């Protein structure tokens, strides 16, 4: 007896849409089990995780704050995946974006006018795009796969930031703490609501949703990317350049991740520190797939993943659970999603007779 996977003759669109919901439900059940094993009341923990953070307006604004970088990174990742370009190093591009924007902000200093913030943001976008561009160059020139290159460059970026805030960019008046000086007011993103921490970056992320949908669904450029991703042979026949697709995707997703990074340090953080991201760039990969690579789907997925971040903090405070619980639950969401996807595409058959 052994199990065999058989491709389903017809794909169920309903199940393709239900799979993410099922995955989230199963992950919640798995989380409840985990809480019980850790000796907590599962229902209280689930409430703390999913509902308590949204009890007041401040909770919702915090949710938007967390969802913003996730959504920006995920949209770039998803456009790439459509073209079969796998940027899994958004974390690194996010970090370099923050460094580049932060460097411009610190270089200009307290003076300067309205042009400071756009310059800072552009520097962040350019930094992230350049970091993605390294992977594009290595892929198109030496055929080094972007999965490895982008992932490894993430660690390079994080170490680079760690060195910068302990060295060249360290605040001389910061009592030797590993952090840069605070950015000047002109370099900071305006907040959306008085008293909240959510900035106009949330609007950038929201605007990226219809723009990405337009790019993929309505433009020739998006069509070329999709053809390269779906059928490389057809792309060669049509004369669509695979190298152009690799460059487009890595520059675009790097730029979006860089924007997310610079928005984080010119928003809620206000300076460069060694830990500017609780893994947004990696969690965004889950957001992209949970959202079925569709811009609108990713909007909802980013809210859900943002909620997990908030809920995990609440669990830490209210139930004394380690922050790693968020990582475990994120992992379960992805695992169950992949499992549900396999069952959407294939059915499991018991093969009774072993083949000779």
């Amino acid at each position: 007896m052994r199990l065999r996977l058989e491709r389903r003759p017809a794909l169920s669109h309903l199940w393709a849409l239900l799979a993410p919901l099922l995955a989230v439900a199963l992950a919640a059940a798995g989380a409840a089990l985990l809480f019980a094993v850790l000796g907590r009341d599962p229902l209280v923990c689930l409430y703390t995780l999913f509902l308590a953070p949204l009890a007041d307006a401040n909770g919702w604004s915090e949710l938007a704050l967390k969802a913003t970088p996730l959504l920006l990174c995920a949209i770039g990742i998803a456009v790439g995946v459509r073209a079969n370009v796998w940027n899994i190093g958004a974390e690194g591009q996010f970090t370099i974006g923050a460094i580049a924007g932060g460097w411009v902000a610190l270089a200009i200093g307290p003076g300067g006018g309205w042009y400071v913030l756009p310059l800072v943001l552009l520097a962040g976008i350019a930094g992230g795009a350049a970091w993605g561009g390294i992977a594009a160059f290595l892929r198109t020139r030496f055929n080094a796969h972007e999965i490895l290159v982008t992932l490894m460059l993430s660690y390079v970026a994080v170490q680079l930031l760690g060195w910068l805030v302990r060295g060249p960019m360290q605040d001389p008046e910061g009592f030797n703490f590993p952090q840069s000086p605070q950015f000047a007011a002109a370099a900071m993103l305006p907040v959306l609501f008085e008293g909240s921490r959510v900035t106009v970056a949330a609007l950038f992320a929201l605007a990226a949703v219809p723009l990405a949908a337009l790019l993929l669904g309505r433009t020739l450029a998006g069509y070329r990317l999709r053809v390269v991703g779906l059928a490389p042979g057809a792309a060669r026949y049509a004369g669509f350049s695979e190298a152009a697709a690799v460059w487009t995707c890595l520059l675009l997703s790097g730029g979006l991740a860089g924007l997310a990074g610079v928005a984080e340090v010119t928003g809620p953080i206000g300076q460069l520190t060694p830990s500017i991201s609780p893994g947004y760039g990696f969690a965004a990969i889950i957001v992209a797939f949970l959202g079925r690579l569709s811009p609108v789907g990713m909007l909802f997925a980013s809210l859900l993943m943002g909620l997990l971040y908030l809920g995990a903090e609440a669990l830490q405070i209210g139930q004394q659970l380690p922050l790693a619980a968020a990582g475990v639950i994120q992992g379960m969401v992805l695992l169950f999603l992949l499992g549900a996807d396999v069952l959407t595409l294939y059915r499991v058959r018991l093969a009774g007779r072993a083949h000779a």
Partner: protein
Amino acid sequence: MDPTPRLALSGIAKRYGPTLANDGIDLAVMPGEIHALLGENGAGKSTLVKIIYGVVQPDAGTIAWEGRAVAIADPNAARALGIGMVFQHFSLFETLTVAENISLGLGAGESLAALSARIATTASRYGLAVDPARHVHHLSVGERQRVEILRCLLQQPRLLIMDEPTSVLTPQEAEALFVLLRRLAAEGCSVLYISHKLAEIQALCHRATVLRAGRVVGACDPRVTAPAAMAELMIGRALAAPARVDRPAPGAPALVANRLSLPQDDPFGTALVDVNLVLRGGEILGIAGVAGNGQKELLAALTGERRAAQDDAVLLNGWPCGRQGAAARRRRGLAAVPEERLGRGAVAELSLTENALLTGTDGAMAQGGFIRFGRLRRFARGVIDAFRVVAAGPEAPAASLSGGNMQKFIIGREVGHGPRVLIASHPTWGVDVGAAMAIHAALRDLAATGVGVLIVSEDLDELFSVCDRIAVLHAGHLSAPTNVAATSIDAVGLLMGGMGDAVAA
């Protein structure tokens, strides 16, 4: 004569999803009989032989082997009974020798030396020239087929299944194959011969069973039945004779290859050597040749998927474009129909509307970088109507179409973009007879409007019925083209086998 059939099938049925691939098939193959299984693509021939060879299991029906009911669980069981099969696509390892390949297939613990001796004995007995020590990548396609046949013969089969064996052979090689099969039959071995080429079935087979849409629709003695009658059985209606279209005299050179050379891009590829070719507007030029003689490379060099070293190696309406890419050449009026439909000529997952854009990105289908879906949909609908493509509509995914209908759509799309030169590779490969006739008619009509049409094909019947002139590609060299009226299938066959000097002498 022994009255017990070697193989008797009754009521064989097999369902794949909504399609009934085999629907109550009865078939009897007698000892020493060469039995043709005739039918269009999708008629259920492949499913039926896979059932006989144990690759798939029938949903219903019984199989009797020499009068005894059997269940054939897998190909090993089939071979144990004495059933051998030569597939259309060979399963040989190119980097291994002939003896090593055959040894893998046999799986028994026979020493390579003993096996080589046995191969040599069997080969000489049947007049098959094969050296057991040669590496497979040195062998021609015809020689590889002989290796596959030898592998079967070593197991002393009593039923040999041949799946479209002549599609990869020159006419001379095919004739040698027929001699071998007749000899095997005379020794009492039965042969189940799958083909849709009526002429060779008439020349070779004792009996023919015709399948259509999964059912047996008739049986006949092909030696005395008119080919037209068999074709009618096969496609279910009378074939209209192709109307000869009057065409203008060939015009100016539309596509020229000028001492075009191209190195091979993989170890088993073929380099192009000094290929010269002139395709004039309004003519149909055919390029014959056995697969693997540089067709892939020639098509890539002409369409721009691979670039030549010099610009003047390829001239498109006088424009030197040897180093230009595919998109640039398409903008100047070059259209191409690739050999593979899904994954190359079309994207399986996209709708027909979206597939219409694949080669139309420079036309009126887009404006300012945005796709004009309304125009695109009308264009796709126009192609579907004009070429009678059987599809649910312009929004149907390409993967939902049959091979023949997809090919009609791709050709219709390329014609619809108004090309000045059309290059078609194997335009009717794997396409049923009705669709093939529609495709040939479309190519003739296109040439009648002054477009230069280049057809690369292994099917000589197709080339001789459609083309004005034929050239032969062998080992990367292209022969001088000759008028179809001034040459013969035999002469072209010799060129395909690399015997060009014999023809010239």
